[in-house]
């Protein structure tokens, strides 16, 4: 635990046959926080996480993981294994690999799965919840969740978020291309595009969101008036006359996100 961080990454690089996937990523993740790596498909999220998990070899850079192999839980992105085992057989088998595993039945109940069903018969969403159970069975200090809700319908996604929120205290590195997922779960977010971190911060302040100019809108003589200002309170106070239909908006996280990714795409053209 040399740096007191759960994850510390400096200058991480990885290419596949000349195509750069990760172009120098730095990350710091504290113990106990949920950190989201947010970015579009192909931005380098999965490559980054797979290097941290030990599933891939980096080309360059420093990676420090403040947890032993037995303290790490990995939720696989697209596993399709062990269809002929029951949920209980699978979870209790994997419990056997860890020194202090969770009680299999309690864990299966926690993720809401039918213990005696064959894995082959589970729905896609149930299958992912099994992956989460297998990631959690060893009581990890550090959990890797790589795009856990891809392909979920909105209701299944919300249920899944509830599951993850209940893991308070566990350090989580989540990758996702769903903005609302990062916003719902993460204490901190890093936006990755074309293999580089382009912004990092709390969801509320990401990309200067809290201090960005606000838009003041109101109705005047039947038309919508609009003004951009650093200080909307002062603007409204100093305005002479009524301001029917007054609204003050700041850019949404989505606006910031699209701008960040867009900027990056533009700079590549």
């Amino acid at each position, binding site marked *: 635990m040399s740096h007191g961080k759960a994850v510390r990454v400096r200058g991480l690089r990885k290419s596949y046959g000349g195509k750069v996937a990760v172009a120098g990523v730095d990350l710091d993740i504290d113990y106990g926080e949920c950190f989201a790596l947010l970015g579009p498909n192909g931005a380098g999220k999965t490559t980054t996480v797979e290097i941290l998990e030990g*599933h891939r070899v980096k080309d360059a850079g420093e990676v420090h993981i403040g947890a032993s192999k037995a303290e790490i839980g990995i939720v696989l992105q*697209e596993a399709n294994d*062990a269809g*002929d085992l029951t949920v209980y057989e699978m979870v209790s088998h994997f419990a056997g690999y*860890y020194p202090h595993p969770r009680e299999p039945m309690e864990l299966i109940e926690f993720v809401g799965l039918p213990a005696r069903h064959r894995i082959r018969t589970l729905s896609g969403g149930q299958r992912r919840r099994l992956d989460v159970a297998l990631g959690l069975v060893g009581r990890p200090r550090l959990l890797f969740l790589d795009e856990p809700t891809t392909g979920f319908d909105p209701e299944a996604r919300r249920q899944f978020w509830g599951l993850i929120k209940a893991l308070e205290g566990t350090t989580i590195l989540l990758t996702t291309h769903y903005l609302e997922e990062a916003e719902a779960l993460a204490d901190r977010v890093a936006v990755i595009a074309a293999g580089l971190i382009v912004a990092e911060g709390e969801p509320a302040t990401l990309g200067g969101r809290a201090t960005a100019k606000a838009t003041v809108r109101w109705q005047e003589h039947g038309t919508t008036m609009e003004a951009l200002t650093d200080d909307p309170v002062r603007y409204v106070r100093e305005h002479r006359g009524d301001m029917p239909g007054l609204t003050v908006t700041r850019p949404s996280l989505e606006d910031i996100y699209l701008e960040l990714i867009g900027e990056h795409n533009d700079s590549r053209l």
Partner: protein
Amino acid sequence: MTVGFRRGIIELKQFFRQRDAVVFTFSLPAIMLLLLGSIFGDRFEGTVVTASQVFTAGMIAGGVASTTFVNLGIGVAVDRDDGTIKRLLGTPMPRAGYLLGKLVLVLVLTLAEVAILLATGIVLFGLELPSDPARWLTFAWVFVLGVSGCSLLGIAASSLPRTARSAPAVMNLPYLVLSFISGVFVVPLKDLPEPLIQIGSLFPLRWMAQGFRSVFLPDVMRGQEVAGSWEHGRTAIVLAAWCVGGLVLCLGTFRWRSRRSG
């Protein structure tokens, strides 16, 4: 060791719940024996030995090749493709545990396969088990060398199929071809065209089949072999060479991860 044992149990559970694996890997040799043994039941000239008894002895080699080479080639390719290996590598389990589990699976399956084929031969085709301990010693070394060599070749060959879906086809083709030209599906081997015999002789299956015939058939039957003798020395050398060759191939080509995940 405990890990290997636990892996072995879970591998066996999964194997016997997969209908296609049980039918094609495990039952195929027994079905072939039933068919061939029933169709060709004639006595060999000047002996009391029937063709069905000869098939039984040779089919044991076919069964061993199926539960080792074919089974491992498909099994490891599928495990690489469907996340089994990736998931295990993400746990504190030592990597050797996976291979030890496969070893347990292969040993149990192969012994059961041999037992089924022998039972078929004894009950249906009047095969008699030898009482001479020397013959069982021969059985032991042919079995150990054959299982080791074919298992290593199967693990090496698991890198050939591009996807899990193509694995059964990729593994069964060489198995079936070699069964025809190694004295397993067609006996006696010496009646085959010379070039086919020579190709078959390059691989372990022919020598395993010949070795098992020397265990379960009376010595008069060595006249039906290509060289007119059981050739134990040569059998041991070829099988041992394939153990070494298989190990070298495994060390050179084995990948824990599938090609597309780099």
